[in-house]
């Protein structure tokens, strides 16, 4: 077979920030510069990130999330009524402080360095969340574009804090309705502006299932108040579908991984997608962007009965390692996947971003480029007719 449209290569979103961008970000966070001033610096970083993705043969590029502090807390620059608070500030409001302490110890981080957006009043969109990012990106690339957005569940779960949020939103569900409305309007605006692919990041879903007590990855502070996993997953599903119901004309995806804040595999969550799949496949999105490149992601076989329901964004490289996966290895991973998924529905991407948190990238740009190049080499060969398992 020979089909040039097979196996599009894309990214999950983030790219390591250059040191001068980190400097500008720190200035911004200290209140010493405006978001606009910061963005002028970030423009150059976006251009560099896009160039590197293009050079590496990426078909659907992102802006590298260079304007964001991380994949969800950046919303405080765009929304009113939501404020970035440190865990130190939240300690007085947390019910289960002991579990917070466990997480801080496990990560060896001070509470003042961990931040979470918290709803402290009525949340309004002051600005579009990512329209500025898309416009700039489209002005500077001919490739297709992907815009990652925080998923409605993660944003709701991390932002609703008893004692701080309940004046404006008595129940978490009240905030959930607001958040899904904001994200829905965002998707529609991005679609009108010509975005090709919007990806919702919902990494905390794996924490809901696999975040054992005392071993939490601590992605967002408010998870301490979560209910039982089934209830949480049903709620995540409900929020997602309320957000995207009936939207067409733009590719929608959801990304789930098991943490991307450390290069130590042993501290990240592990477990297969089995418990999540009944919920993920009910989400009215086109694609599941998932990690598969490490043993932590579990066996592919759990997809057996779900294989043809959705497109799959197949994680084929580990974003956190120094060694670059060979294109042979990647090819083999893709061929394995074709035993379960329709080849026309397989997209290729790394397991996660290369710089989820601005100050703690999991890789350098050179290695990240090499990994993407390896993926696109594999994709090219696969398109030229390497026999696909029947």
């Amino acid at each position: 077979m020979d089909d040039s449209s097979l196996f599009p290569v894309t990214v999950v979103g983030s790219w390591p920030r250059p040191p001068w961008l980190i400097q500008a970000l720190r200035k911004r966070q200290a209140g010493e510069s405006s978001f606009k001033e910061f963005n002028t610096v970030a423009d150059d970083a976006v251009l560099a990130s896009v160039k590197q993705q293009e050079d590496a043969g990426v078909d659907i590029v992102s802006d590298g999330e260079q304007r964001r502090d991380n994949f969800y807390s950046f919303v405080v620059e765009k929304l009113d009524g939501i404020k970035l608070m440190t865990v130190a500030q939240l300690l007085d409001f947390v019910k289960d402080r002991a579990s917070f302490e466990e997480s801080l110890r496990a990560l060896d981080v001070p509470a003042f360095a961990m931040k979470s957006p918290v709803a402290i009043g009525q949340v309004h969109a002051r600005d579009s969340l990512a329209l500025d990012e898309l416009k700039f990106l489209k002005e500077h690339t001919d490739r297709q574009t992907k815009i990652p957005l925080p998923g409605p569940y993660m944003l709701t779960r991390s932002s609703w804090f008893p004692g701080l949020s309940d004046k404006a939103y008595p129940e978490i569900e009240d905030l959930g309705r607001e958040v899904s409305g904001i994200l829905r309007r965002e998707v529609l605006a991005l679609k009108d502006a010509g975005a090709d692919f919007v990806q919702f990041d919902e990494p905390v879903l794996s924490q809901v299932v696999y975040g054992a007590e005392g071993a939490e990855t601590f992605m967002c502070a408010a998870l301490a108040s979560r209910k039982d996993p089934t209830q949480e997953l049903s709620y995540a599903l409900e929020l997602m579908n309320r957000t995207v119901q009936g939207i067409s004309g733009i590719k929608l995806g959801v990304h789930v991984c098991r943490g991307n804040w450390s290069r130590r595999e042993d501290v990240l969550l592990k477990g297969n997608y089995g418990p999540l799949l009944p919920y993920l496949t009910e989400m009215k999105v086109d694609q599941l962007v998932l990690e598969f490149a490490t043993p932590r992601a579990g066996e592919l076989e759990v997809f057996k009965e779900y294989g043809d329901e959705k497109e799959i964004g197949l994680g084929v490289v580990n974003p956190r390692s120094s060694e670059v996966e060979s294109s042979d290895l990647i090819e083999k991973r893709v061929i394995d996947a074709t035993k379960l998924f329709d080849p026309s529905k397989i997209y290729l991407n790394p397991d996660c971003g290369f710089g989820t948190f601005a100050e703690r990238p999991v890789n350098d740009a050179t290695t990240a480029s090499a990994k993407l190049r390896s993926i696109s080499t594999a994709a090219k060969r696969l398109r030229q007719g390497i026999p696909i398992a029947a």
Partner: protein
Amino acid sequence: MQEVQGKLLNGLEASKLDQFVQDLKTKPDVAKAVNGPWRSRVEWQGGLKAKGYMRNHVASFDEPEGLGATDSAASAHEHILSAVGACMMTGFIFQATRKGIKIHNCEIALEGTFGNILNWAGLSDEDTPGYPEIKAKMYVKADATPETLEKIWNEAWKRSVVTQTVAREVKVTPSFEAL
């Protein structure tokens, strides 16, 4: 050193700190008064609960539920970790402020593991019932080089009243009277 009359740095008035140090240096009665004695009166509250009254302040104590207690407050061996940390922090902030360094965030994570809980329970004479070691890690974000900050930190814990009390095997003088 940066003299800022009446201006706040780290929530403190630098001139007052200087005055305090000056008084310690030149007025023996001030030093004597600051030396103490310091006092606490601990009242039993039923169960394993207690309250410590210190001047016009009060702190509550209890034990975790494992002991059949009600876990309504931190236990004494936890309070001492906080006391060590708070004392280290006092010294650190004091010294840094005197040097004109603006502190953005400061946090100390402390941890201790009993030598042998069986000793506490009277089931063994081995080892110590206390913490053979207290780990204290300071995290700080401030307008100074890491080297400068670490130097102040080392001064702070080495000169910390509570740290040196627990580190020096203080002579505790127990006495007793039944009523």
